[in-house]
């Protein structure tokens, strides 16, 4: 009896702490959903309650969609994140293949540069990239949103690490079978690296769907706005103090990622454990 006790107590403590942490993390989301479901009068009432007395989610959503072109912003988000991801894969896979499987002079130096590139925050290069886009006349366009991210050093690094684990014999077998070097990248390495590509895709899509900084810098036109930018502008211009529609808009904006997560939960977790990051 003396030593059976501490273990359940510890387990309880652990769970209490975890639940408290989870509640803390979830609170803003729950508050967002709660606010999105309340009519204006309830939001500003002095008493705090989570469940609205009068359910107004539908009205708030209708108002949000009426005041801003939310569908257009969602579409922008999809176009930008998908283009970024596809281009990143097209650059990262051949580069990673060369760094992992081909022997050439300066390979280690190039790889060191890739690692070095991971250390540089995007904000540091923001001004030069902005100026380049300006000189090229590409500001305020999809290209401005996509081009700066097509070369992902993180993606190259991740894929290179994964390609290292693909046996050399497989590459040699492909060469014997007459597959060209680029063919090996797409026909042999890509199918073998689907888990890694998925993991990278998750990081890339989440990061660029939620990116606020870069679209804020390069965009002017309203019709190009990405979802986070749209929410921010929604508050400033359209909604004023009407928080109900604002929160409803925020819900719409995060919904695609949440739904994608629910569908691909297994993959998501696999991907994160695979990369061992975060």
């Amino acid at each position: 009896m003396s030593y059976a006790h501490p273990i359940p107590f510890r387990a309880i403590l652990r769970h209490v702490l975890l639940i408290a942490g989870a509640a803390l993390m979830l609170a803003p989301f729950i508050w967002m959903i709660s606010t999105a479901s309340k009519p204006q009068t309830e939001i500003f009432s002095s008493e705090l309650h989570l469940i609205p007395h009068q359910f107004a989610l539908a009205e708030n959503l209708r108002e949000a969609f009426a005041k801003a072109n939310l569908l257009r912003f969602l579409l922008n988000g999809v176009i930008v994140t998908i283009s970024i991801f596809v281009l990143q894969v097209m650059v990262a896979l051949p580069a990673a293949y060369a760094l992992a499987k081909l022997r050439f002079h300066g390979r280690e130096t190039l790889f060191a540069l890739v690692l070095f590139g991971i250390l540089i925050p995007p904000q540091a290069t923001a001004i030069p990239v902005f100026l380049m886009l300006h000189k090229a006349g590409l500001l305020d366009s999809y290209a401005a949103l996509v081009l700066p991210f097509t070369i992902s050093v993180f993606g190259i690094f991740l894929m290179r690490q994964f390609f290292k684990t693909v046996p050399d014999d497989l590459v040699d077998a492909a060469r014997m079978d007459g597959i060209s070097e680029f063919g090996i990248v797409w026909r042999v390495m890509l199918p073998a690296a689907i888990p890694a590509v998925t993991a990278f895709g998750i990081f890339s899509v989440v990061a660029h769907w939620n990116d606020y900084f870069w679209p804020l810098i390069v965009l002017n036109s309203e019709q190009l706005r990405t979802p986070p930018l749209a929410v921010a502008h929604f508050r400033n211009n359209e909604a004023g103090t009407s928080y109900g529609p604002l929160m409803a808009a925020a819900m719409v904006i995060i919904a695609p990622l949440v739904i994608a997560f629910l569908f691909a939960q297994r993959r998501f977790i696999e991907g994160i454990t695979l990369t061992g990051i975060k």
Partner: protein
Amino acid sequence: MAQIELSAIRKSFDGTDVLKGIDFRIEDGEFISLVGPSGCGKSTLLRIIAGLEPQNSGQVHIDGRPVDAIRPSARNLAMVFQSYALYPHLSTFDNIAVPLRMRRLSAIERLPLLGKLLPARRAKERHIRADVEGIAEQLDIAPLLRRKPGQLSGGQRQRVAVGRAMVREPLAFLFDEPLSNLDAKLRVHMRAELAELHRRLKATFVYVTHDQAEAMTMSSRIAVMMGGELIQAGTPAEIYNDPDDIRVAEFIGSPKINVLPGRIRKDAGIDVLGTALKLSCHAATGECRVGVRPERIDVGAGPFSGTVVHLENLGAEAFVHLAIEGAGLRLIARLADVRHLPAMGSSVAFGFASDAVRIFDPAGKRIEIRLEQPERIREPAHV
């Protein structure tokens, strides 16, 4: 069908010489085994033949044509890897079809979706299907064509890898330790199958292994490599009975050949463990090494004696380990008759016939010997 000629092949990795000038000619239709201890450069040599690794100097000729500037696939050789190297995402059928698709379909026809719509591709695909199914039939893997490599056993994967090599009808097959991932029983079985395949296809086989039993049982010739050099090539019987070098003698044969210290006397006779052998040689006087295969040691009678320190009874044969007092030496003798084994710890006499002896100089090179003939026969020569 091809004859492969290697001349003065050298290869070094990061300054270390891995191949130190290999000259070798593989005849058309031969089953040649490259054997040698781990790290001696067998795989490297095979990869140079395949074109997967460029040599530092020297030439490879296939059917008299230099192939050094030719890509691996254009050399028209097929290779079977130790790990089989099947494409994990493709079914057995597609794995075997890859070399055919790469050769017969144009780049446009190979495109994932668009290609399927082209009428020319459909006709070619029909031929490919027929060829793949024919190969699958021959190798007994027809029921497995829809499975992925991950759903196959080791032996089945091995067959698929052989199928992928066969389907393109290459000039020669290169095997890099294809059986070493299989369990012992399956290995013996596949040994017979590969030998049978060679007889049927009559193609040139170059087979790398460090398992001398595989080399002995399957090949028409064995080439023994040591430390980046090819030290002897010959039929299995030649390699076994007439090794040029003590390293060959020690590498081939299981259990290993017994090596005893010997002395070459001034009168060209040879002493072993204080007993004179009935043979002579031309070499300089001094130390030498005397090799005798375990099965040539006669236990029970002879001028030497040893203590039985270990017995291995395999049922059909037995190995007796003998310690020789005073010499700090151990010998292994093979006994064919397991019903009369000496007792552990007992002292037994043993000897060996003169023609069982192979003599090597201190550097390991073989010394030719002359068996001493009985006086009567030798006399006429004196007269």
